Every structure is written in C-alpha cells, then in structure tokens.
C-alpha cells in the first residue's frame, strides 16, 4: 500500500466541480484565446498544473486513453490520474483521446490522432502547459468564435509550433484541438482558429 500513500485529493464536490470545469472548457472552446479561470484544485502532484489536473478530472475517464509527455511523467502524476480518472495511459500518442505536454517540449503536432472524416471528434485534445498566458498582441487569432481578431501571448512555446498549427488547420474537419494552460488559467485553440505570429 506504500504506493498509494501519495494520492492528492480530487474535487471536493465531484459533480458540481466537474460541471464548472466543463463549462470553463466549453466557454474557452467557444471563444478561442479568451482566458478562463479554474481554481478548484489547489494541491496537485508536480509537475501537473492545477488547471490541467482539473481538466483531466472533469473530462478524462475510462473511455478516453491519456498520453502524458515523458517530461511530465512522474509516479505521483500517474497514480493521481489513474486513481481519479480511472483512465488508461498509452505510450503511443496517436492512440490518445487526451494528451498532456509542456509547451517547451511539445512533440510534433502531426503525431497526435487527427480523427477521420466520418468521426473527426476522435482526434486528440492536447493540454499544453505553458509558462504564462496573457492577452498581449504576440499572436493574432482569427476564426469562428472571434468577431474580428483576438490577441494572445503564450510564453515558453517551442519554435515552429504555429507553422505546424497552420498545417493542422488545413486538415479540417479533422485535426487536433489545444487547451493552453498556465497555473489555474486556461484558454483553448480549437482546430478552426487561425494563428498569425506578430513580426518583430
């Protein structure tokens, strides 16, 4: 039983708390790039961010295989997610329904499941842990859910991601969705959002 002693607590109220997180993710997906706050968990196993843990507890279950990036994998994280979500962890990210990765070591986006034309919803939703999110004009977002354009700044993202993101957008209706996370804040980039980097 020694392995079980480091499980951190889950939601205080499983029903209402996961509904609140679901609502936050729904709003984030409907308004790409707008930040939502989810501060329902305050004690989560490192290196998991509180918002990524909350999204996992609300959305991941035994029917959604989860992939965790090697740099975020720890015994405490695996135990926590397996205990609270009851999910299976997969080593192949193209088989995952959800994935957690850090922005600086985000693997190539084309390695995730993109779904197929009949079932585009079977693609991977990638939770990306960033160093910070702000409404600064580093990135300009356009697409459904944005009236004209929206500004977003994502700190600590590895180079080349936004070029891969443009390729992901071409795959529509297939393609992955991103949930960007920083601490207790989250913002979403659904596959329909076009991202342009600000020059200089």
């Amino acid at each position, binding site marked *: *039983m020694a392995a079980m*002693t480091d*499980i*951190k*607590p889950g*939601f*205080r109220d*499983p029903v209402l708390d996961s509904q609140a997180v679901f609502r936050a993710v729904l709003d984030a997906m409907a308004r790409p790039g707008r930040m939502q706050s989810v501060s329902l968990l305050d004690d989560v196993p490192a290196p998991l961010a509180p918002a990524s843990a909350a999204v996992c507890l609300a959305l991941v279950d035994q029917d959604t295989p989860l992939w965790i990036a090697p740099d975020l994998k720890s015994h405490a994280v695996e135990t926590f997610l397996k*205990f*609270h979500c009851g999910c299976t962890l997969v080593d192949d990210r193209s088989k995952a329904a959800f994935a957690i990765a850090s922005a600086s070591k985000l693997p190539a986006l084309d390695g995730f499941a993109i779904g197929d034309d009949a079932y585009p919803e079977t693609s991977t939703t990638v939770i990306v842990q960033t160093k910070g999110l702000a409404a600064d004009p580093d990135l300009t977002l356009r697409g459904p859910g944005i009236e004209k354009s929206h500004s977003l700044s994502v700190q600590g993202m590895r180079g080349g991601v936004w070029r891969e993101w443009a390729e992901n957008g071409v795959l529509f209706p297939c393609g992955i969705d991103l949930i960007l996370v920083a601490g207790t804040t989250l913002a979403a980039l659904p596959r329909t959002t076009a991202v342009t980097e600000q020059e200089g």
Partner: protein
Amino acid sequence: MATKRSTACSPEQSAERRARQRWMSALAKAPFGDLEALWNNLPSKPSWTVIRAPEVGMVMARGRAGGTGARFNIGEVTVTRCAVRLDYGAVGFGYVMGRDTRHAELAAVVDAIMQTPSRREALERALIAPLCLRQEETTRERGRKAASTKVDFFTLVRES
C-alpha cells in the same frame, strides 16, 4: 508502469489481504448507527483529508444458483464509495451498500487506521470485534428463526 497488479502473492500478503477483507466486510455490513456509536466512544481519532469525496454508484450483484451452481446476475445495487488519507499518510477505502455518504467515509477512515500496525490492535478490540460479534448474533438469530419453520417430509410406508 511502476506497479503491475498481480494476482499471485506471498502467504503474508494473502493473510494481510484476508484480514483486510474481514474488517472491510464488517464495516460495510454494520448498521451505521452501531458503527457511529462505537466510533464516538473511541478515545483518540486522527484527522483526515477526503481524497475521493463519497460518490454513489451502481454495481451488479451476482449470485450462484443454489450457492454453488452457475453464476447469474441478481440485479444492481446502489453502492457508495469514498477514499480518505490520514494526516500521517495511510490511505483507506470505504465501499458500502446504499447511499449513506457518512457511512462510506467512516468506513474508509477506519480502514486507513486498521492499516497502521501500531493502532490496529486497539481498534480491532474497540470497533471491529464488537461489530463482528453483533453480525454473528444477527446471523444466528436469523438462522434460528428460519430453522424453527423447517418441515421434515416423510412418507409412511404401509406395512403389508
């Protein structure tokens, strides 16, 4: 994966498992009133954190025809489960029939304490043993009542 669950285990492990099955069963079958009364009489109680808040679900109960025959599904029963962690680290689980969340939480706390070797004996005497005793009495009483209604059928053979 660091820990692979295996069904094979050493004699000490299986003894430990049987012991735990015994007290978890006693906690689950005890009427909540009995459990609470015994708990309230305990001199010292640790404090705990709930790691999985009590939640109500369904499990399929299965039986065997005649006790030994083929398996069949009796029906679904409501089950409440809860997991807690004591301040010194022990993790306990409570699974009880019905939808009493306090019962599940208290069963989980007692399970956690029972896994602490230094506290096990005292708690066994103060809580588990009385619960087991009461359950045995109930079973015996029920058996006695059922036995009193037993009818022996026999056929008179006419001597010719």
